């Protein structure tokens, strides 16, 4: 008596992959994380309560896999990985300036603490409500708000540090 169907879970794969890619900054690690999360969500499908938010539940499962494994992998996340993430193909229609901005965003994201990166991505990229993000992470909503606030501000500072250095231009206020 599956609580949800394999097809319903598969429909979430593109969004799980997008979030995992942004979270890990690495294509292969992201797809392994997604695959592990899918397996775990499928095995544990009886624990999902009908009528509740399936997407938030599956993201919570992925968060569980991530904290059990990715945190331990962080010491080996070398500069090579970051460089590789930055070099990843960007939308061809984008101009060179956009490509640079995107690669800067990717490396700035990886410099955020996990906790802040998760919230910035859940809210800003995956467009979860604050309450849903709290459910995904298993923390109070106030914690989501403070991590969001710190994460966005840190990201803004990282950009302002990068911009004058890399382009020799100072942003005009």
């Amino acid at each position, binding site marked *: 008596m599956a609580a949800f169907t394999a097809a319903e879970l598969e429909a979430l794969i593109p*969004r799980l*992959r*997008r979030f995992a890619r942004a979270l890990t900054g690495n294509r292969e690690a992201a797809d392994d994380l997604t695959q592990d999360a899918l397996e775990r969500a499928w095995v544990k499908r009886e624990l999902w309560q009908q009528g509740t938010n399936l997407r938030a539940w599956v993201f919570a499962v992925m968060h569980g896999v991530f904290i*059990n494994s990715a945190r331990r992998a962080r010491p080996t996340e070398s500069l090579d990985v970051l460089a590789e993430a930055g070099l990843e193909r960007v939308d061809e229609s984008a101009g060179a300036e956009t490509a640079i901005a*995107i690669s800067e*965003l990717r490396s700035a994201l990886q410099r955020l603490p996990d906790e802040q990166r998760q919230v*910035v991505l859940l809210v800003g990229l995956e467009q979860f409500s604050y309450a849903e993000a709290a459910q995904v992470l298993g923390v109070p909503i106030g914690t989501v708000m403070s991590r969001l606030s710190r994460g966005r501000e840190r990201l803004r500072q990282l950009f302002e540090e990068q911009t004058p250095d890399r382009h020799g231009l100072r942003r005009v206020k």
Partner: protein
Amino acid sequence: MDRQVNEAQLHAYVDGALNEAERSEVEAHLAAHPDDAQRVRAYRAQNEALHRAFDAVLDEPHSMVVGAPSTARPSRWRWPMALAATFAGGAVIGALLQATLGAARAPDGPAPIARQAALAHDAYMPEVRHPVEVAASDEQHLVAWLSKRLDTPVRAPSLASSGYRLLGGRLLPSAGEAGAAPVALFMYEDARGKRLSLLVRREPSGGDTAFRYAQQGSTHVLYWIDGPLGYALAGEISKDELSAVSLSVYRQLNP
């Protein structure tokens, strides 16, 4: 900042989570506070940049399916983990040496059982595919096997009331004493994937002790001796939660 407009509302404004009245309140605030207006613009630009950077992933082809056996899948994710575990292991061994040296001077340093539990928990907790040798689906066999190897009846207490289910268990070598019986390790997991390890081993000195607490890195351990067996429960959960689970273990073993 105005009395009515706080940090949370600025973010809710960025994320389109306000109703019309709240929105115009924030807009009035922004008109009077250019610094906040600039932050709001920067945060909005971040959200847009995130989509530009990652939305392409949505359309990438992939070969993932749900419900198919995939044990043959090459496991790149775990290679960095294995390496990281090696580093973590080095750190743990360093910490152990230090703890051992410290213990010579301070008889109240963490007991060997607590260190062994923390070490085992840190080694096996991150495993996605092989956290245990024998899975809980084979619990009868697991318990019989471990009881035989420890040469004393052991059992895997149920932590269902605390929200954890048994994943399974494994056998570990003794912590050092020659001829000592090996050690049993049970692993549990909650619905969110958080794990706890329960180490059970023979205590030649026997006796009963109170719950004692130790910490190694982010792993917390509660341990106690109950007759011929010593127990140590390890996990990255708060001391309070760990105490509650330990108490439930203790009660089940002493009905």
